[in-house]
């Protein structure tokens, strides 16, 4: 098990180094000078140069890369070009919205998908199964931003139960914060739940045909007991993979949903930073997301080993 974790850890580190080089390189290539952008069309050339020097943009790319990486290692992501505040603080502030949003959406999607997927699998071929599969098909097909707009129309504009968007801040109380995240979380969760339910169903159906399931039934277990004790555990590997992928998607992929609900989260931060050429913010947020994805994958790898003892021994 230790060796398994160590190999996973070293591949995690290598991925991070490669990612940092790729991100920095790509952002260097994008045309657009942050200083010229900030000063607009009436600015004089010497003013732009003065601002470039102030932002440290006159240093060589290699020097800037090392300054960026060495800062990140110590938790210092640098200072935003446009906002002039530490990037670390900005990210921390935005994470307080994006992280709860992703977690709520993930919890919602899992809570919906598991029972639905299990139900569909155990009643395979029945009318229940067909109806469930029909709905999940719809859930996968509907784009989440469109679903979000629909929810705003119904619950914010017509029923007035929720605000159309915005975030009052956690200082206004847990309830106000959760209320503001409800519609966005549902919009994010629904397509994810549909995908997860379908994966759950097909993974479970695969294991239901296995010999050990017949043995379990022959031992005298009911269908329900056999599923709970033997089939579910075996079906978890593909499901875990999908959950891992979904979490990274929810964290990074909320860009559109955050725009629809004008939530000040990470997605909106990166969206604004790209258009304003706030390169250091873009680099740092993307790096953080890469880090999150890699760490989640690492956690999923560990989880595989926990549910499947064979993986532990092999490594």
């Amino acid at each position: 098990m230790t060796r398994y974790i160590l190999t996973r850890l070293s591949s995690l580190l290598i991925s991070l180094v490669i990612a940092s080089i790729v991100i920095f390189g790509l952002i260097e290539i994008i045309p657009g000078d942050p200083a010229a952008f900030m000063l607009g069309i009436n600015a004089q050339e010497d003013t732009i140069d003065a601002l470039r020097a102030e932002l440290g943009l006159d240093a060589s790319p290699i020097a800037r890369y090392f300054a960026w990486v060495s800062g990140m290692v110590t938790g210092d992501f640098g200072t935003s070009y446009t906002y002039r505040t530490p990037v670390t603080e900005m990210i921390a502030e935005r994470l307080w919205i994006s992280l709860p949003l992703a977690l709520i959406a993930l919890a919602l999607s899992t809570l919906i998908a598991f029972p639905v997927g299990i139900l569909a699998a155990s009643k395979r071929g029945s009318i229940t199964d067909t109806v469930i599969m029909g709905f999940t098909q719809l859930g996968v097909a509907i784009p989440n931003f469109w679903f979000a707009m629909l929810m705003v129309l119904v619950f914010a504009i017509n029923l007035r139960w929720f605000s159309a968007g915005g975030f009052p801040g956690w200082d206004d109380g847990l309830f106000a914060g959760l209320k503001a995240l409800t519609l966005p979380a549902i919009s994010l969760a629904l397509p994810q739940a549909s995908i997860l339910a379908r994966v759950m169903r097909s993974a479970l159906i695969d294991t239901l045909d296995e010999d050990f399931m017949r043995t379990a039934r022959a031992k005298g277990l009911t269908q329900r007991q056999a599923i709970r004790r033997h089939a579910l555990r075996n079906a978890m590997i593909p499901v875990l993979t999908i959950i891992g992928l979904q979490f990274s998607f929810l964290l990074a992929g909320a860009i559109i949903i955050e725009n629809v609900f004008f939530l000040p989260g990470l997605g909106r931060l990166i969206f604004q930073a790209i258009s304003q050429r706030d390169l250091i913010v873009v680099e740092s947020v993307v790096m953080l997301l890469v880090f999150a994805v890699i760490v989640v994958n690492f956690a999923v790898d560990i989880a595989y080993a926990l549910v499947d003892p064979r993986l532990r021994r092999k490594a």
Partner: protein
Amino acid sequence: MKIKTLTSVFALMIAAGAAQAETGLIVGIQLEPPHLDPTSAAAGAIDQVLYSNVFEGLTRFGSDGSVNPGLASSWDISEDGLSYTFYLREGVIFHDGTEMNAEDVVFSLDRARAEDSANAQKALFAGIETVEAVDPLTVRVTLSNANGGFLFNLAWGDAVIVAPESIEDIKTDPVGTGAFKFSNWVQGDQIELVRNEDYWGTPANLETATFKFISDPTAAFAAMMAEDVDVFYSYPAPENLPQFEADPRFEVLVGSSEGETILSTNNLMEPFTDVRVRKAVAHAIDRQAIIDGAMFGLGTPIGTHFAPHNPDYVDLTANSEYDPELAKSLLAEAGYADGFTTTLKLPPPSYARRGGEIIASQLRAVGIQTEISNLEWAQWLEQVFRGKDFGLTIVSHTEPFDIGIYARPDYYFQYDNPVFQTLIEDLTAETDPKKRSELIAMAQTIISNDYVNGYLFQLAVPTVVKAGVEGIWPDAPTQAIDLTAVSWSQ
């Protein structure tokens, strides 16, 4: 029971929404200010939130674009027009409690024109030779050349008076003299201002003013419809304005802005070096079709680079009337009977993206093929504005009274006319209002006759306002949302 609890929870939520006290105002705007220093960035959002509300200059713009006394209650101008003596108001106190005096004015103006200044409109201060404090309430500014637009220049958001003690943190904690104080900024979401109880002038009616940043047009519609915001300034989706007009809960104000929207032409690129080609382009364009198709009917046609609401405006639209046949014959005369191909580079705003498609098809009708490329602002600045690598582009020039850009041969459309340059020099030096008007009219006519750019329309600013909100400026003489006189009707 469960349903009952739920219902009461929702009832509470609704009550909380309805209890929104009528002493505060929530204003939706599209873009968030990058920081809060109007004197070191071009972003219009900074002025929208802070101009007049938090920061004031020696002079200030009125709702009609006129220049009025601000922190200076009056001034004397010397005979030769070189020396301005400003008399400051008494008892003006910065939001941090310190007094505003002549030293602060000297500091602010010197900072703006300093060598290492990051002021985006540094040219406004170019003619200043010295700024000196005569006594605590008197400032004398000496210019190297007479400048008839100097008081106008001082009214810009880039020329506001800042407190030296607070300059270190101005980007996150702005300290001004205005009727509102900066209170709180939730980055990515909103900025809150509160009433300044120690204001020197008429205090604001509103106790709080909150600016919310909603960039997505659909989200803007939803926020307005759900009454999450009271005012949406420069509403981004003109297609649903009729819906607001029909709804008694709202009012739609369509004001004019300082944004001359033009088909900018690279005057140094073949074949636009030939005035006949530029004239052909001008006659190939059907302005009204662009206004109707791209702007849902909002916008006033212009025939030169000047705002139609300005008293000195000359209507020169007849100079470039829609006449595709004339355009074709002009092209033939210039040796392009079979037309030519050029680039059309479009920045993100809808006037450019939607307008660009329409212009491309109008140009195609006279034989001019365009290769359209959609650019982000940062790319546009780099390629078009600084790199001058373009044939045509569409952009709205939102700075007030900016006809002087035509006197800068290195400006991105690269128009180099010594006659015009001398005229602008004379205009700058002229202080007599009547003679200024004449010169301004001449300037408009020259660029119109030279077909420097395709003049399309003056950008309109639609603002959606909740019924009961009074005092919102309909027009946008500068990029400001002056809330000092806004109130809720009883």
